[in-house]
């Protein structure tokens, strides 16, 4: 999934390039017609032969298994193994409160996306504006991005334990203990918060790269005109970085939807009360723990459709951002 979705991000740039290259083939064609003869057929076939490996690999190792999986989701589990059951698995899926929670959490992730983008954006802005100590922050902020989700999860399990240091710190200033990972109303936000902490370093780097292309004369002009920090961000930085922001939106979304499994597994195991389930985790539980591979296939198909819709929206978003630029 991530590879498939990340590709479109380079497409607008390519599209721009081919426009410029249109004239070259026509010049080439003149040359080729002169050489027309015995070799032309092989030459006509050559491009197809050359793209064949890529296409074969995609068809054999991606599309074909995908179709098998979709087909498998229409068969039964256990006693009905191998028999066609129509839409039974899908009906069961959408009847399962746990799967609905998982879908609801996907919605929550989408809603929290602006926060996940704003944090690295703001911090990158501060670094760009050279707040005191910005050199240290630049490396410190990136540090969590090199840790694996399992290690991050283990660290925060310790920090956020009911008798852990965070609650002890809260207690010392007179605030009661919070069961960070045991309260169904806050556990999901905690996990997302940790995920953002662990991954914002990458987005920060992308933002810093975006800032490198920003015309500093505009900033100086705004300052001379007496713009406040907020006004600088609102009227200079955001419009100047629209393309970078769109790119970070897309990559953060993909990251949130596809790589939260490790954190969830380590930090909450889908709990408490099933409140932190995501579709991936649901699929894993059904396949591995409940011995329901066909139901898991149906859930995978549902997740695939969701990702497809999200992916297409992202492509659209990127195209539009590219055009504005």
């Amino acid at each position: 999934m991530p590879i498939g979705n990340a590709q479109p991000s380079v497409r607008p740039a390519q599209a721009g390039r081919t426009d410029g290259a249109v004239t070259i083939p026509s010049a080439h064609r003149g040359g080729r017609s002169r050489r027309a003869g015995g070799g032309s057929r092989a030459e006509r076939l050559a491009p197809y032969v050359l793209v064949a490996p890529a296409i074969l690999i995609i068809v054999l190792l991606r599309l074909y298994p995908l179709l098998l999986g979709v087909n498998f989701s229409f068969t039964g589990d256990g006693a009905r193994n191998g028999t066609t059951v129509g839409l039974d698995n899908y009906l069961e899926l959408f009847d399962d409160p746990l799967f609905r929670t998982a879908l609801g959490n996907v919605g929550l992730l989408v809603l929290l996306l602006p926060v996940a983008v704003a944090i690295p954006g703001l911090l990158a802005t501060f670094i760009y504006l050279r707040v005191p100590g910005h050199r240290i922050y630049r490396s410190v902020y990136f540090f969590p991005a090199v840790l694996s989700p399992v290690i991050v999860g283990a660290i925060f399990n310790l920090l956020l334990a009911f008798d852990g240091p965070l609650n002890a710190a809260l207690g010392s200033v007179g605030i009661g203990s919070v069961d960070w990972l045991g309260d169904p109303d806050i556990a999901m936000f905690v996990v997302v918060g940790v995920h953002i902490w662990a991954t914002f370093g990458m987005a920060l780097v992308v933002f810093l790269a975006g800032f490198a292309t920003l015309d500093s004369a505009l900033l100086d002009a705004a300052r001379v005109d007496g713009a406040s920090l907020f006004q600088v961000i609102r009227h200079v930085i955001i419009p100047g970085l629209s393309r970078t922001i769109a790119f970070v939106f897309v990559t953060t979304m993909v990251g949130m939807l596809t790589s939260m499994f490790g954190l969830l597994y380590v930090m909450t195991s889908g709990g408490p009360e099933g409140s932190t389930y995501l579709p991936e985790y649901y699929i894993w539980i059904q396949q591995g723990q409940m011995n329901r591979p066909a139901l898991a296939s149906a859930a995978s198909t549902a997740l695939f459709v969701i990702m497809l819709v999200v992916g297409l929206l992202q492509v659209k978003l990127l195209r539009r951002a590219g055009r504005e630029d």
Partner: protein
Amino acid sequence: MKQRAVWSAVLVLGLAMAGCGSAAGPGSSSGGSEGKLVVWDWKSGEPSAAPYIEKAKADFASKHPDVAVEFVAQPFDQYYTLLGAAIQSGKGPDVMLFNGGGQIRDRVDALVPLDDYLAEDKQRLAGWDAFTKDGKIYAGPVTLQGHPIYYNKTLYEKAGLDPESPATTWSEFLADCAAIAKAGAKCFALGNKEGVGIQFWLSALGSGILTAAEYDDWIAGKRDWNSPAVKRVFQLWKEAGDAGLNNDGANSTAMFNDAFALFQSGKAAHVIGLMSDVGHWKDFNEFLTADKLGVMSAPVVTAGTTPSLPYDGGIGYAVAKWTKDPKVAADLVRSLTSTDALKAFYADAGAIAADTTIDVSAGGPAAATIVAEIKGGKPALHVALSSKTLDLMGRLSQQLLSGSATVDEVVKQLAASDKAG
């Protein structure tokens, strides 16, 4: 030009072959050919299990010198996922390790009934029920798994209680808990993050709550979720949580192994633990010393009940349907459950072995108490439930602790799930 096309075609073919080859790669370690048996488990990789595997291999080699045995240790958290894939493709190991109860019963379609092959071992080994479905045995038990209530004698002394005579009724137990609380410790170390705390609770206390007839009916599949005794199990769970008997934040504490760590470090006086693998007498002995670790029977809640030790076959080896010669594979299972091999398993890996003839006096008083109670023990209540119902029960138990569900709602949902499963 032609040559170029030919080369491209060769390139394509080569790449396609390489692609296929790598896709088929991981399958090579599965599937037994003639003269070779492949065993899947999650134990053989551990150093503590090495003497056990050695003994079993030697025993098997003396019977079938011409058959090679390959042990493939899989990571436990992926084990049933990998096994599910193997079963789906109809190709995989000849012999495989299973947890008793739902994990093996859900997969008996892929297994060979072993009644005829293992008939001689029936008396010597215990724990067959967990590997039985519809009257047929599908695996030879290696260890027994159960849920003794361990207690910390040092904390009992500190609280002014007699460590040699723990409470026998629930009201006495609550009084003891109050004394322990005064001494600055919690009554129960409970981890319910994974939702397994309630399973241990149900099984460990069930024999003191359900009448003998109700207990046997439950195991036999005739479960009356509306009976007052069943409701009482969940009521007590909620009351214990509300009364602060458990450590704080039980819903975010992992049973494996944060809750056991709380018990080992003397922060809680009781823990419902295990007999084998982890969270058992051997682990606790190391921290609390063997003399200060006790095992108590479930306190009687319903007058007239006789508490018993809840236990089942813990892990056992089964034979796959697709193996070439089930007789040879079953002989390997017999070697893996031989007295010598199991003795090594008990001593080194810290498990109550399925072979009850093994002398465990070296394991300390707690292990001795457990083995003494095996004869009067009964299958654990939660093992009779499907994995789906257990999963639901885990989530509902968290709701009971947090107060977002009532006992009646919980029992109703569990009844519906139990009926459907």
